[in-house]
C-alpha cells in the first residue's frame, strides 16, 4: 500500500460566526497529483493555509508529511514546498542566487546546494541562464523556476496555488509535464487551478462548495458519477449548488 502523505479528519476553521472550512476529511497518497478545486470563496485558501502550518484549525485533526498540523506547524513548513500564485522569487537576484537563497533558508549545506542547483539548472535546460537576473526572464520561465525552487529541499509535498494563471498555452503544458515528472519521482503534488482542462490531468480531484468537500474521486469516476462529459461540467454542477456568497 502506498504511504499517506496528507491525512485530515473533520478539519474545521471558523472566523467568528463564519465557518470557512467545515469538517473536511481526505487523504493524499505519495506521488499523487491532487487537484483541489472550488469556486472563489469556497474555502480552498483557508484549508491550504492549515495544511501548510500557516493557520491553526478551530477543530479537527490532520497530518502532513507525518507531522501534526496542530502542534508541528513549524516542522511541516520544512518538509513542504510552496509556490504561490504571486511570483515570489527575487527579481534583483540571479537564477543561481535565488536558488542559493532558498536552499539557505531550508538549511541545505553548501555542497548540497551546489549539487541541487546544478541538477535543477540542467532539468530546466537553464545552465546558460545561471547568472541572469530573474527579473529579465520571460514569465513562463519564471513560473518554471519558481516550481523547481519550491522543490529545492526535496520536500515530500509541493503545494501549488494557481501556478499557471496568465501563462501562455504552450508554457502551461510544459509546466504540467514538469508536475508529471516530479510526481513520477514520488513527490506529492497538491494543486489549485481555475483551468478546468488541468483538472483532467490530476490523479484525483476534490471539489469544495461552501466550506465542504462535495466530491472527491478520479476525474474519470467524477465524470461517470455526474454523467458529465468534462470536469468543467462537473465543476459547474457542483459550484451552482453554492448557497453562501463569495
Amino acid at each position: 500500500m502506498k504511504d499517506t502523505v496528507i491525512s485530515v479528519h473533520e478539519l474545521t476553521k471558523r472566523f467568528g460566526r463564519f465557518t470557512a472550512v467545515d469538517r473536511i476529511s481526505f487523504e493524499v497518497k505519495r506521488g499523487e497529483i491532487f487537484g483541489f478545486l472550488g469556486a472563489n470563496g469556497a474555502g480552498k485558501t483557508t484549508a491550504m493555509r492549515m495544511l501548510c502550518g500557516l493557520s491553526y484549525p478551530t477543530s479537527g485533526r490532520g497530518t502532513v508529511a507525518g507531522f501534526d498540523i496542530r502542534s508541528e506547524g513549524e516542522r511541516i513548513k520544512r518538509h513542504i514546498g510552496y509556490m504561490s500564485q504571486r511570483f515570489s522569487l527575487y527579481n534583483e537576484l540571479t537564477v543561481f542566487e535565488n536558488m542559493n537563497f532558498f536552499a539557505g533558508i531550508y538549511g541545505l549545506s553548501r555542497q548540497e546546494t551546489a549539487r541541487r542547483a546544478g541538477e535543477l539548472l540542467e532539468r530546466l535546460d537553464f545552465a546558460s541562464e545561471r547568472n541572469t537576473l530573474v527579473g529579465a526572464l520571460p514569465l513562463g520561465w519564471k513560473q518554471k523556476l519558481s516550481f523547481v525552487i519550491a522543490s529545492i529541499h526535496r520536500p515530500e509535498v509541493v503545494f501549488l496555488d494557481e501556478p499557471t494563471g496568465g501563462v501562455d498555452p504552450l508554457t502551461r503544458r510544459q509546466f504540467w509535464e514538469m508536475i508529471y515528472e516530479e510526481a513520477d519521482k514520488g513527490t506529492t503534488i497538491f494543486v489549485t487551478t481555475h483551468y478546468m482542462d488541468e483538472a483532467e490531468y490530476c490523479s484525483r480531484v476534490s471539489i469544495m462548495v461552501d466550506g465542504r468537500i462535495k466530491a472527491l474521486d478520479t476525474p474519470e469516476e467524477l465524470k461517470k458519477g455526474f454523467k458529465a462529459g468534462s470536469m468543467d461540467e462537473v465543476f459547474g454542477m457542483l459550484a451552482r449548488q453554492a448557497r453562501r456568497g463569495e
Partner: protein
Amino acid sequence: MKAVEVNDVSKRFGKVEALRSVSFEVERGELFGLIGPDGAGKTTLFRILATLLEADGGTALVDGMDVCRDYTSIRSRVGYMPGRFSLYQDLTVEENLAFFAALFGVDARDSYSLVAPVYRHIEPFAKRRAGRLSGGMKQKLALSCALIHRPSVLFLDEPTTGVDALSRGEFWDMLTDLKNSGISILVSTPYMDEASRCDRIALCNDGGILGTDSPVRILQRFDSPLYAARADDMFALLGAARKVRGVERCYPFGQSHHIVAGRDFSAEEFTRELSWLEGLCLEPVKPAIEDVFIKLMQK
C-alpha cells in the same frame, strides 16, 4: 466611425518591447477580445487607449478622437476597468458609485438602468466597505463604476483573471447584455476558452498580434490534421507519441493529448506502433483556440 482604431502602435520600456507595431480595429457595438498570456502587452495597450500612457510610435483613435490630442474628451467617453482593483477600499459600495458619478458630473440615478444588470448583484451589500467585498463582488462594483457615466466604449483589462469557471461564465453573460445595449467593448483575458464569447478576437503574444478574426474564422486557420489520443497511462503516451513518424507535435489537452499530424502521419501506423499502450484510442478532432495559439506561436 470605428469605436477603436489602432495603427502601428509601439511602446518600449527600456530594453523591453511591450508593443511591436500593433494594429487592429474595434467596430461600433462590437465585443472584441484581446486574448493572450501575461506579458503580451495587453495592459500597455489599454493604458495607451485610456490616455494614461503615450505610445512611442503609431496612432490610436477612440470614437474617432486621437488619444494624444483629444485625451480630455476621450476620458469622459470611455469606461476603464484596470486589472488591479482600483476603487476606494474604505468607501462603501454606494459611496464608490456616487464618487465616480460625481467625478464624471452625472447623477447616478440617471444611469441606473444601464448599471442595474451588474449592480443588482451587489446592491444588497450597498453599505459594505469595498475592501471587505469578495473578489467577484469587487469586480462587479468596478464594472458598475466604469459604467456610471454611460460610456460609449468600455475597456476591461482581465476582468475574469483568478475568477472561478462558473463566475467567469456569468461575467461574460453580463458583457453580452451590455454589448446588446449598444456599448462597444474591448476586453482582455488570458483564458482562451473565453474567446468564443467575443464577436472578434486578436490573439496577442509577446508584444504583437498573431491574428485577428472572428473566433470561428481564427479556428479555420489551423490547417493541419489534428487528432485526440488517449491511453490508460497518459504520461507514457505523451513521450511515446512524440517518437512516432509524422507526429509534428503532441501536447496534453484536457482529457486527451492532441496530436498535430505532419505529412507522413498515418493513423494506422500510429495505433499499430503504440498498440502496447493499454486503452489506446485515436480520433480526429476539431481544433480549439489554444491549438491555434500554440501553432501561431511557433511560426
